[in-house]
């Protein structure tokens, strides 16, 4: 065991297993909600999209969805990288996955906040 787990994941297996399942369970209702929103938003123009996504409740749900989605995706992509990327490329790939998913999550969260702000300006 000692030499087979040289890459640093020796004690993180259980935590990772639980994290992927907990986020997956959370994503079930969140994605169900998202499917309904996607139906309501399909073909929406700018005003409709701002009005619907900017509502406080919707913005909060969207932010939860975005955070959980990219957290779950990060965990999954790391497992795939662990399976197929070995040697010197491994560490940069791990970092790239983490940075990429964090960047996407951050972009999404900031966008939602901005849309919520736009809606307040439009409706007041």
């Amino acid at each position, binding site marked *: 065991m000692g030499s087979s787990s040289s890459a640093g994941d020796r004690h993180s297996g259980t935590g990772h297993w639980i994290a992927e399942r907990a986020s*997956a369970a959370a994503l079930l209702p969140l994605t169900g909600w998202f499917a309904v929103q996607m*139906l309501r938003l*399909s*073909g929406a123009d700018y005003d409709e999209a701002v009005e619907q*996504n900017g509502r406080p409740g919707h913005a909060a749900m969207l932010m939860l969805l975005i955070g959980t*989605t990219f957290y779950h995706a990060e965990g999954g992509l790391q497992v795939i990288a662990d399976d197929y990327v070995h040697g010197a490329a491994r560490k940069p790939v791990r970092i790239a996955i983490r940075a990429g998913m964090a960047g996407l999550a951050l*972009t*999404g969260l900031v*966008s939602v906040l901005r*849309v919520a702000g736009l809606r307040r300006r439009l409706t007041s």
Partner: protein
Amino acid sequence: MQDVREAFYVGSRSDGTLTRRPMSPHLQVYKMRLSMFMSIASRVTGVVATAGAALAVGWLAALAWSPAAFARARKVTGSVPGQVILAGWILSLVWHMVGGLRHFLWDTGHRYQRRAINRDGRIALGVILLTAAGLTGAVAGVSRMRAVARTGGVR
């Protein structure tokens, strides 16, 4: 050699030349079965669903950026390639979620017998295709209704 495990992959042919022994498990010796296909598809759809989520963040960012940026995003989502990508994203999300539900079931120790796995695989495939087709059709339908309502029923 970048990975110490590579040392174990060095083998020699009968004529003495060195060769790289295959890693185990190696895909090429297995016959593709439904369970194997569903397992691989679960992984692939997870990656595709993530790529779709990245595009969705792009849509949100365009909405947050400016009406002009959102108009460009709408042009993409309204185009044929955009619709195909949207349908692929929906299919991937549904596929990955149904695959995940089966994993939850397996985690409780159920449906792990070979017969159960093969049977559930076929059912899962049917549920996935029907749900994805229904959702995609509904999205396209609502979008069309909106477009018709906007032009006052005149095409």
